[in-house]
């Protein structure tokens, strides 16, 4: 019973992080039809900035304020997105999509080394945040309180994103642009602005994922490249461009990872890709994909 509860909670914890990363990736693809290969690095930016700021502030700030500082990590990633879209991606919308993929691959290389340049080759950690919550007993199982906090953040982010996309005026413009960019532009939607906003939100989600995972796993080089592949598996299973798909995909991948790491660590990654391949074989556009 204890192990089961812990496995379920661990699955949800992984799923939260994966959803934060994958939802940004899928949002950007859904609106702009661009697969951002540097997306994982924006997740890493979130982690590094959060680790750096929390590291500076620990001791002089009350522990509760440190949680708010994590948001600055997400903000930094969003800022990077707001700068990158108009400068790097906008000139390429009229070109074949290979070029867009290539430019984001170039950005991946650049961001990877910029992180090393600014914060050095060693991992950054700031466990002061996760320590403040101690551990909680749920159904007889002892579980770190911070992990519960991350699960709540993931659930909250999913709800907020859903409300944002489906219940606000901006969401309507976003979906209109996603369905037919030309028609939306003809009806008076400022497509350029929608693009930059969608990209910024996508990066914010990635940065938030990095910021909340940082107190547990630290900020390390290569975390972005690794996260990107897992996010790809999530969106391939769920359907590229679908937020519901990202959520379901994240839960599936989270569960498989949890079980895999415990019982068959050697083939855990291979199994994930195999599941993705099977899903694609049965449903070519993923579980919730449109085309």
């Amino acid at each position, binding site marked *: 019973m204890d192990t089961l509860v812990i496995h379920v909670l661990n699955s949800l914890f992984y799923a939260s992080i994966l959803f934060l990363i994958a939802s940004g990736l899928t949002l950007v*693809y859904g609106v702009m*039809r661009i*697969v951002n290969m540097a997306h994982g690095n924006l997740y890493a930016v979130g982690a590094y900035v959060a680790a750096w700021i929390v590291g500076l502030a620990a001791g002089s700030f009350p522990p509760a304020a440190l949680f708010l500082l994590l948001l600055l990590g997400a903000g930094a990633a969003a800022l990077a997105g707001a700068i990158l879209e108009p400068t*790097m991606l906008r*000139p*390429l919308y009229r*070109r074949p*999509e*290979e*070029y867009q*993929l*290539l*430019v984001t*691959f*170039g*950005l*991946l*290389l*650049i*961001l*990877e*080394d*910029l992180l*090393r*340049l600014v914060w050095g080759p060693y991992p950054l950690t700031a466990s002061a945040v996760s320590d403040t919550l101690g551990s909680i007993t749920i159904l007889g199982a002892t579980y770190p309180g911070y992990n519960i906090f991350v699960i709540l953040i993931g659930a909250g982010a999913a709800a907020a994103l859903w409300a944002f996309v489906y219940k606000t005026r901006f969401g309507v413009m976003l979906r209109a642009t996603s369905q037919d960019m030309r028609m939306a532009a003809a009806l008076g939607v400022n497509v350029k602005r929608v693009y930059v906003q969608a990209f910024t939100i996508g990066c914010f989600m990635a940065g938030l994922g990095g910021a909340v995972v940082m107190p547990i796993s630290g900020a390390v080089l290569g975390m972005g*490249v690794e996260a990107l*592949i897992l996010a*790809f*598996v999530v969106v*391939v299973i769920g359907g*590229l461009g679908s937020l519901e798909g990202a959520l379901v995909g994240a839960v599936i991948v989270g569960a498989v990872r949890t079980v895999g790491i415990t019982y068959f*660590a*050697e*083939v*855990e*990654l*291979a199994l994930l*890709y*195999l599941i*993705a*391949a099977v899903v*694609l*074989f049965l449903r*070519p556009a993923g579980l919730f994909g449109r085309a």
Partner: protein
Amino acid sequence: MSAPGSVAAATQALLTPGRLAAVALSLLVLGVLPLILPPFDTLQVSYGLILGIAALGFNLLLGYTGLLSFGHSAFFGTGAYAAAFLVKYWGVRSMEAFIVAGVLASLLVAALIGAVCVRYTRIFFGILALALSQVLWSLALKLFWVTGGTDGLRVPTPTLLGGAFTQAFGVQTDKTAFLAYRYYYYVLAVFVLATTVMWVIVHSPFGKALQAIRDNEVRAEFVGVQVRRYRYVAFLVSGAFTGLAGVLWVPLNGLTTPEVLYWPFSGRIVFMAVLGGFRTFWGPIVGAFVYNYLEVWAVSATVYWQLVLGVILVALVLTMPTGLVGTAGQLLAWLRRSRRA
């Protein structure tokens, strides 16, 4: 007019004296290089030739079929590991055995990955190839009792052509001398053969059908091209070429690690093709040479070599989308026009 006759005529039209002279001159230069260059630079030329084969194979998909694969590390790594396994588990030292095993193994991997991937095009194809190639990477990393894990597997100097060279020129035990002379010429011979085969493929009716698919899939289907089957065959050929490059690479490097299976390595192959220009036949080869030198230079100059390469890639895509060969071609055409005017 029969089909083979028209192909022969078309081939003759392509083999202009100017082009043949350029190829002959390049071959001459490549042939005398080891006699002029210090061994270190000869090795770099070898790396360039090998990566050229990989990029050439990759470009059959990107340049000729219109499919951008971010998973070619799978084939390169399969070739490399196939050779390493032969050494480790069967004690085989023959280079020809490495090549046969490596090409067959990468064909098998391409057959499996391709069966899923060619159902898709565009971005889906790319990320699917990427994700599936990472299955091999994770296996190479995790099954360390078989693959050596992150330490990888060592591959000693192989025997070439059943030791015919050694018997003809006397035994040379020095590894650098072996790699910089005999192995260099071996690689050069395989490179010339592979390039010729690829040239014939892309100028054959099959190659033309691939280009038709690239330019307009629906029309190609209407004309009677079996699009998915052609894509699948192109995928197999592409994988086999990149696998061959992996086999040739491993004795030169002396070691294979999971890094050649990791997807950023696929990114390097993509980089080479784009750098040289993927719309031309020779572009990826030029790109492979230039990229190899660029990387050697950047790695020796700074620890932030990825940053340097990333900036170059972004600048290239934004300002020079046709690559080095494409841009050179445009410059030549412009010069000719301005001279005439």
